[in-house]
């Protein structure tokens, strides 16, 4: 199986879907001539031309709305946000237009669009460029929220997202683009809404997504050295949430830590904890703990930034607590 970067896996998904369906097009800032701010669209302009790889002005609200409108006409736009930080300018189009069109029209008009780009913190980009917004979008009925953690998932989930008939918020890990991994060639499609156990274990469940999957795997490795077998559950899709996989894991381990890059208040982890306390209350041997980004705007200084971010050490510490060690 070929080894690809997360970036190239996304490119492969885009290329294959654009070859497969002439209604699929890519639109966003710097996607064409510049080959993508993060090079995800490298080579696509040459292959598909400027009508299908459309460079936009810096006008997030405007081109997100153009994407919604094109999708209302039945096209399948892939709208790239250079990062999800900038997409806040367009959130009205996602929340008030894309998410609600099917319902407001009683099923007459759908919005089969994908909105994608990097989210989460990178390195020392400061407060406005280091944010995890998945809980914003996951809050909204009508949207789906997908966050791949590996190259293989990036390809398989993006292909599904493009084929989906509903608007999909597809948040890529800004720190994951260079991650390498085996990626199946051709028709590799992962259904939305399915979590995956990335590492089996019997002592504790670590629920995570996107960047925190690598963090959790690193923590699990460290814990294994201490005789603790952690099971790592990668949500992959935040909405719809695969409660069954989470509950099944917690049913085996009886202890759980939920890790995410976002802020603690009303985060994705809060929703996961709600599911567990409601449907697996009797299975728990300890309260579920959350490991999140610090409840502050991201600082620039690298030591302060490290203190604000989720890392394996913090996850190991939380696991120690739920094991009462």
């Amino acid at each position, binding site marked *: 199986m070929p080894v690809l970067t997360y970036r190239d896996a996304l490119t492969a998904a885009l290329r294959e879907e654009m070859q497969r369906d002439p209604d699929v097009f890519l639109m966003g800032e710097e996607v064409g001539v510049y080959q993508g701010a993060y090079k995800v669209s490298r080579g696509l302009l040459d292959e598909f031309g400027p009508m299908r790889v459309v460079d936009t002005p810096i006008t997030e609200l*405007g081109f997100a709305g153009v994407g919604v409108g094109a999708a*209302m*006409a039945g096209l399948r736009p892939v709208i790239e946000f250079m990062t999800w930080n900038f997409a806040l300018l367009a959130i009205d189009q996602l929340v008030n237009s894309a998410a609600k069109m099917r319902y407001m*029209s009683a099923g007459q008009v759908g919005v089969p669009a994908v909105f994608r780009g990097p989210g989460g913190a990178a390195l020392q980009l400061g407060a406005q460029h280091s944010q995890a917004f998945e809980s914003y979008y996951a809050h909204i009925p009508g949207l789906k929220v997908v966050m791949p953690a590996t190259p293989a998932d990036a390809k398989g989930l993006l292909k599904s997202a493009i084929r989906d008939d509903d608007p999909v918020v597809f948040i890529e890990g800004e720190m994951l683009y260079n991650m390498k991994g085996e990626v199946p060639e051709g028709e590799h499609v992962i259904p939305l809404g399915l979590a995956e156990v990335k590492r089996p274990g019997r002592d504790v469940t670590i629920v995570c997504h996107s960047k925190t999957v690598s963090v959790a795997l690193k923590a699990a490795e460290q814990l294994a050295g201490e005789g603790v077998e952690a099971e790592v559950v990668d949500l992959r899709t935040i909405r719809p949430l695969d409660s069954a996989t989470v509950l099944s894991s917690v049913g085996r381990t009886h202890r759980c830590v939920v890790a995410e890059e976002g802020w603690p208040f009303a985060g994705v982890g809060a929703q996961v904890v709600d599911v567990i306390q409601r449907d697996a209350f009797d299975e728990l041997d300890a309260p579920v703990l959350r490991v999140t980004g610090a409840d502050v705007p991201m600082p620039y200084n690298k030591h302060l930034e490290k203190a604000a971010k989720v890392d394996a050490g913090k996850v190991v510490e939380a696991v120690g607590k739920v094991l009462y060690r």
Partner: protein
Amino acid sequence: MAGSTAAHRPRQGPKPDTATLAEDYRRWLRAMMVIRRFEEKAGEAYSLGKIGGFCHLYIGQEAVAVGSIAALRPDDYIVCSYREHGHALARGITPRTVMAELFGKAPGSSRGKGGSMHLFDAERHFMGGHGIVGGHIPLATGLAFAAKYRGTEQVAVCYFGEAAVNNGAFHEALNMAALWKLPCLYICENNRYGMGTALERASAIYDISERASSYDMINEVVDGQDVLTMKNAMDRAVERARQEKAPTLLEVRTYRFMGHSMSDPIHGHYRTKEEVEEHRKRDPIALWSRKLIADGIMDEPGVRALDAEVVAEIAEAYEFAEKAPDPEPGELYRDVYAGDKSVKSEK
């Protein structure tokens, strides 16, 4: 006006014969009467508590929707703001269906789930009333993008009030439409007030059409009280969009005879009774009736009979809406996602 320069004059099609024209003229009068009588009835129903939420009446602006939509093909796209009852009716959605939606009933255009501000009819390419000021302008631009992408001759038309032009979405959308030469028509219904804020208190320039010059977009000022003037201006803009993929901004000067919504009086803090009375002298239906009578196309008894016929049709629509069933309780979770099966979160 840039729109009337020779370069942008439409190619002349075959001239319709007099009988066809007279038939069109009568149909436009009837369409305007349908909107007027519908809105009066909707206002009445609102006062009786039969219609809830917000309800924005179109009385006074009827010639804009009727004249402009008369210039469109059935496969052209229409996107509206929340003051869209008139456009929906002018597009041919039946008064029954629109009234039922206002009543929140099952046979409504969105099975009662959209309401006054969210009328849709995908078959007629009527792509919704939208409730966020300016937010729908990029949607029309996207529909125009789709037409160009597919190489069809369709155009997309977007209606919005003059208050929306101070919104970023307006500028972002017009810039892209001009940059990419999209077949999109932006129709600014300048009724002088965004809720209670007069144009002069909200906009640094008073000539909305000039906004288009920032994007080198063809623009025209149109008398929105005259249905024929509206139709002719629209014909020119549609022709440009279809043939040259050139977008247009039409600033249509009109006036809303009622309050912004049902919660404010016709006149009050922000405009005087005298001002409203003055504008009412240019009632689009009265103007057009007089013209048809003067031209000998109709006579006064004919106009009265037509109105009586419309009144009866609207009364029937009202009765239909009143008697129609509410949506089934199961409707609550339908159509959140495709396939009608709602993904009910995780419980």
